[in-house]
């Protein structure tokens, strides 16, 4: 009997916590389809006017484009450097490795405002402030540790005998990498890329410090919007971003399952 009550209590508590995690995201969906400009439920009528405002406004269009450009720069750099480093550091023991890993991963935990402030001073003399490239480089430094971590995790399950077998059968190192290692670690590389992209796509503090009006990114645009006057247009943008996040999450989850299968675990 005690066990039953315990199970009920545990289930209800867990359900409440899950609701706390997800409901706040769902509440804004209906409001973004409201025909009125006030932000409360229930909505007086259904309309797509806020989506129209969002998708026809040059400022939002520019911001979305900028975010994709910056995200692409950051992701390409982070994935290339992070994957190479993960391959090089995996099963490689040397003195000071823990320290090196600690430093390489530290961008994940150093307060973002410190990175922003440092970059603010550092980029101006290089002519990189108020440029999409500068913002992309700063975001690449923030995203690379995610790639390092995810690819390293995939490599842990990677049997090096596969690569050795390829080499003993006469494959050149690059061929063995391209035909054997890469397909197996690909899920790790891609989910690292997703993390790196989201890190950049969602980043607003460095963007606040480094961008002028022409380099405004989507989070920056949302930040200004929320600060000045939160309108249903922001919620329309938020709804699209939630759908985008759900897409990314599903991709990452499928990749994780594929990775587990490919590595022959379970």
């Amino acid at each position, binding site marked *: 009997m*005690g*066990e039953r009550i*315990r199970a009920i209590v*545990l*289930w209800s*508590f*867990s359900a409440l*916590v899950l609701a*706390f*995690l997800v409901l706040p*995201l769902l*509440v804004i969906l209906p*409001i973004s389809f409201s025909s009125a400009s*006030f*932000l*409360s*439920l229930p909505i007086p009528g259904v309309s797509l006017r806020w989506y129209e405002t969002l998708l026809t406004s040059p400022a939002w269009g520019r911001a979305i484009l900028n975010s994709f450009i910056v995200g692409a720069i950051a992701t390409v750099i982070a994935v290339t*450097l992070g994957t*190479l*480093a993960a*391959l090089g*550091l995996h099963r*490689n*023991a*040397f003195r000071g490795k*823990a320290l*090196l890993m*600690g*430093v*390489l991963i530290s961008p*994940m*935990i150093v*307060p973002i*405002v*410190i*990175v922003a402030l*440092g*970059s603010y*001073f*550092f980029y101006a003399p290089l002519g990189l402030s108020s440029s999409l490239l500068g913002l992309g480089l700063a975001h*690449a430094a923030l995203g*690379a540790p995610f790639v390092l*971590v995810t690819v*390293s995790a995939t490599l842990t399950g990677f049997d090096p005998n596969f690569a050795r077998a390829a080499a003993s059968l006469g494959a050149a190192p690059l061929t063995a990498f391209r035909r054997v290692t890469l397909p197996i670690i690909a899920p790790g590389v891609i*989910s690292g890329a997703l*993390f790196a992209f989201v890190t950049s*796509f*969602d980043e*607003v*503090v460095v963007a606040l*410090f480094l961008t002028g009006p022409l380099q405004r990114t989507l989070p920056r645009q*949302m*930040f200004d919007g*929320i600060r000045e006057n*939160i309108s249903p247009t*922001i919620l329309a943008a*938020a709804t699209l971003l939630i759908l985008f*996040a*759900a897409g990314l999450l599903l991709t*990452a989850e499928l990749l994780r399952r594929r990775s587990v299968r490919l590595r022959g675990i379970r």
Partner: protein
Amino acid sequence: MRASLRRAERARTLRGLGLALPLILFTFVFFLLPIAGMLVKSVQNGPMPDILPQTSALLQPWRATEPRTLPDEAVFAAFAEELRTAARNRTLPELASRLNFENAGYRSLLMATARRLPETPAGSWRDTLVGLNPQWGEVAIWAALGRASPRLTEGYLLAALDHRRDDNDNVQPIDPSRAVYVAALTRTLEISAIVTFLCLVLAYPLAYRLATLPESTANLLMILVLLPFWTSLLVRTASWLVILQREGPLNEALQWLGVIGQPLDLVFNRPGVLIAMTHVLLPFMVLPIYSVMKGIPPNYMRAATSLGAPFFTAFRRVYLPLSLPGVTAGCLLVFILSIGYYITPLLIGGPNDQMVSALIAFLTLQTLNWGLAAALGAVLLVITVALYLVYTRVVGTDGMKLG
């Protein structure tokens, strides 16, 4: 044989490091160098040694005198001469801004004096300057110039801890009415501690439930934990602004249920910040606890209960200790992440809920007091790095798992 083996091993290590080199260099240039630059900025004093070189040099021996009286005529003369040069070279505004950080009236004092400075002194330079403004006859302005005269200063770091040097260069706590930075630091740590605690209370039972479910069900429910994790921080902040406002769904629902008569004020105050930050950081607590709990064999609990231990005793003596590594990892991670928070408190909090990051941004972008901003950044960095070292000691860098 052994030597050649060691050589081969060394070559492998070096090849591996070669592959890692691009990332090492990139992290160094675009992450470590900017932070080092910020640390340098936090002790860099400003332009006075370049703009008033002779005055700066002459003020050094004067700063060693005790008790302080007005500097002698040589200092006044050098100052008047260099002030005129600075006004001609248009470097004066830069100097005036630096001195204004010492005392908010010094910018106008310096500019006005430079404007009305005669070519030749009427009597001594000292009498001339005091004639222009009696403040030049006080020790305070010369002590301020003295503090601005060396290349390096600990003044910004002192200011970040609500201390300053007085006219005799003794370190003093500043006037309580103007002490804001230590309070902001304490508030930051306090909010982070509460958020960490709330996350732990919510995450532990949920992680336990998920870890003890069949794999497929757990994976399905895990998506609900991961969706907010992948969703933009600004989206989540905007949602909470809408939900918590006076006419928002939460207040409407509570009123409809008859729990409250009047709508509650939940935004632009502390409860709002705590609720929203807990929501944002909760996945970072659930994930590490869940991954540790999944590694605990269910047999252990069964063994304990079959030996006659009541559930809670078995839980406390067997399961809880085994799950502690996950709890430590989660708590450290959430605490470290929350002390750097900026956007959520800024948008949802009121003036009394702002954290250190917001002050740093304000000092950088609004008041342009970069030295003080960098010093506050340095204090925040020291706290974070100390916690991070504890984290790597306890959890290790491999413990950073995602998704």
